[in-house]
């Protein structure tokens, strides 16, 4: 009995929002009524022809994606998402599990290419250059768009070799001294150097989880990428290690553009300037992080950030 009602009110609310962007107050007010805990599955009502609320597109974007559809076999994982990532900004992508945020992140440096059943449609560009174009080489693309994964995944090599891996395959250093410098700088920028400077030849897998993740960040920045994609980089870490990584993101944004997928809304609020909310493969709302967390305009966004599902 409850769910159809919830569905109706939701779709009407969504409709209002699309038409009238000034109706935030009203939506919030109507939500003051006694709340029924919602089930995520009740929210399939956002139609296929939906429109993202807020400001998905920005001026002078570093990366842009238009009308992205991603399929795993017959299953559609992302529906019609358009999103820009601004220069030197940190954009957070949030949403319940299975909402397509990680999939979207991975389309940005073509990591989905290695999944045979995955099919990507849409237009992507990095500085105006087509990412999926026939002239694009994934080797060069991934050197410019680096990635840090959910689970720390250092190679079973020494700490030094882990960081030197990227520069070596891209031929960035011409002699041992240059390589030493790249390794030291990368470790310093990942604020790991002081902790490991005496044990650079020890295996990277022997570090603690938080250190391993910073090592992975050092490894990613060693090839001087322009964009760093982070896929839930702190989900396997304790609060102290998480705080270190967040500080690091804050410092890195001076030089890099960062897109971070996270399940922690506090983290999104702390580190990002813009936040995008994904829901069941659709990009529901994008806006300034402050606005998203204080005055979400879409009901789904609000339900998610107030912890009513997901």
């Amino acid at each position, binding site marked *: 009995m409850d769910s159809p009602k919830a569905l109706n009110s939701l779709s009407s609310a969504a409709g209002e929002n699309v038409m009238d962007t000034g109706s935030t107050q009203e939506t919030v007010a109507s939500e003051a009524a006694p709340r029924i805990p919602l089930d995520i599955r009740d929210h399939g009502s956002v139609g296929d022809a939906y429109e993202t609320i807020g400001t998905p597109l920005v001026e002078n974007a570093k990366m842009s994606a238009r009308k992205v559809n991603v399929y795993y076999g017959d299953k559609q994982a992302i529906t019609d998402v358009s999103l820009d990532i601004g220069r030197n900004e940190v954009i957070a992508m949030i949403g319940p599990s299975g909402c397509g945020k990680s999939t979207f992140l991975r389309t940005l*440096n073509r*990591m989905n290419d*290695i999944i*045979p059943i995955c099919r990507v449609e849409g237009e992507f560009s990095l500085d105006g250059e087509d990412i999926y174009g026939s002239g694009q080489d*994934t*080797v*060069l*693309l*991934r*050197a410019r768009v*680096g*990635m840090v*994964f959910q*689970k720390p*995944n*250092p*190679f*079973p*090599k020494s700490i030094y070799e882990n960081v030197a*891996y*990227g520069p070596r*395959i*891209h031929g960035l250093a011409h002699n041992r001294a240059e390589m030493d410098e790249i390794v030291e700088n990368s470790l310093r920028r990942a604020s790991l150097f002081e902790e490991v400077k005496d044990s650079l030849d020890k*295996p990277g*897998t022997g570090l603690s989880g938080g250190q391993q993740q910073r090592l*992975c960040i050092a*490894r*990613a920045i060693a*090839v001087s990428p322009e964009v760093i994609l982070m896929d839930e980089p702190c989900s396997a870490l304790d609060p102290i290690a998480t705080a270190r990584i967040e500080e690091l993101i804050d410092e890195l944004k001076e030089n890099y553009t960062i897109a971070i997928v996270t399940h922690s809304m506090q983290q999104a609020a702390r580190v990002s300037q813009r936040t995008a909310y994904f829901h069941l493969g659709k990009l529901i709302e994008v806006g300034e992080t402050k606005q998203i967390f204080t005055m979400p305009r879409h009901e789904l966004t609000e339900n998610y950030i107030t912890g009513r599902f997901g």
Partner: protein
Amino acid sequence: MDTPTVFLLLIVLSIAGFFLGRRRSRTVVAGEGGARALHSLPKHYGYMAALWALLPALGLLLLWMLFETSILANIVIGELPASVQQLPESERGLYFNQVVSYARGAVDASQLSDVQVAAAEHYRELLAASGKLKALLVALMAVIGGLLALRRIAPALRARNHVENIFKWMLFACSFLAVLTTLGIVLSVLFEAIRFFQKIPATDFLFGLEWSPQMAIRPDQVAASGSFGFVPLFVGTLLISAVAMVIAVPVGLMSAIYLSEYATRRFRSVTKPVLEILAGVPTVVYGFFAALTVAPFVRELGESMGLSVASESALAAGLVMGIMIIPFVMSLSDDIINAVPDTMREASLGMGATMNETIRKVLLPAALPGIVGGILLAVSRAIGETMIVVMAAGLSAKLTINPLEAVTTITVQIVTLLVGDQEFDSPKTLAAFALGLVLFFVTLLLNVIALYVVRKYREQYE
């Protein structure tokens, strides 16, 4: 009653024990809250009763089967006339064997003396009595065991733990049996080899450069006194194994890499079974393939290039052995490369490495311990391989490292030493045991090295 019937009876009794035990466990708690008052589930009490009925009786049956024949033989021989008793042991055994054959109906009475016929009648009676006694005792044992278990059933009895314990000991007994068998084989080879070394000094065997085990087995035969230098055989074995590994390791490893990293699922689902069929081809088929197809081909090819190639060459045998080992190396390496976590691939590809760089710099180093272990296992298989080399490698024990010549291997020589008429205390026959012992130690050593390599690199990489 014969043994299969007794065994069947035992099974029936123990199944009955299961049902009785289960029922009794329910009746003892019928008044006090039903099955919940029991410590274990009713079926555990059933298992317990069944095992108590089965195991001791089964043990008795096995013991009976082990000692029945020798005890009966002693009784019957003891009743034979004194003239027979005084015969030498081997002749007395022959005499008694005729009795047993007659009792079984294998020979007719015309070949036997009256004494033997009478003894055979007695033997037959004893056998029938023993069968009845066996069935009776085993059944009694099963019933007593089952009843004891049934009597013990009470709500507080921890039947579950009891049954678990019995199973643990049964599993232990089985593994112990495997260890004992291995130990038995090793010891028997060792003792025979020691007898060999009493006749031929160990230094002559281990460091001798000539192998020609021709010895006179009858005094009137003319033959060389024989020399038992094992080095040419060992070198031949290593040569053929080396040729085999040169073929098998690159092909096997690279096909494993292709299958696990590049191949589409469809290609893999066809190719892997086909390659595994290679592993299923009997080695004797590989053997005549080597001898009749590959060896002549190698010889002609060599001659067309102006090389002199023996018609049975180490190269031909090694090539075919390599082909035989390919699926072995491939299958092991494929499993190991697949076991490297996907996060490693993602990390490397995400850095902009190509697939090739990822394989060379990340996957292979991470999989190296397993791959080395697999290759060493393949080597010990190559060293122990017999059929192919018997057919294709020849018999001449030449000390050479030229793969175009005929060489012989340890396994080939073991076969030739033991084929045909033998005298069991001649050094020629005993040499087979010494060779077997050496072969055993070489493969053991390889396995130990494999373990060591795997452990060393694992420490480094994990």
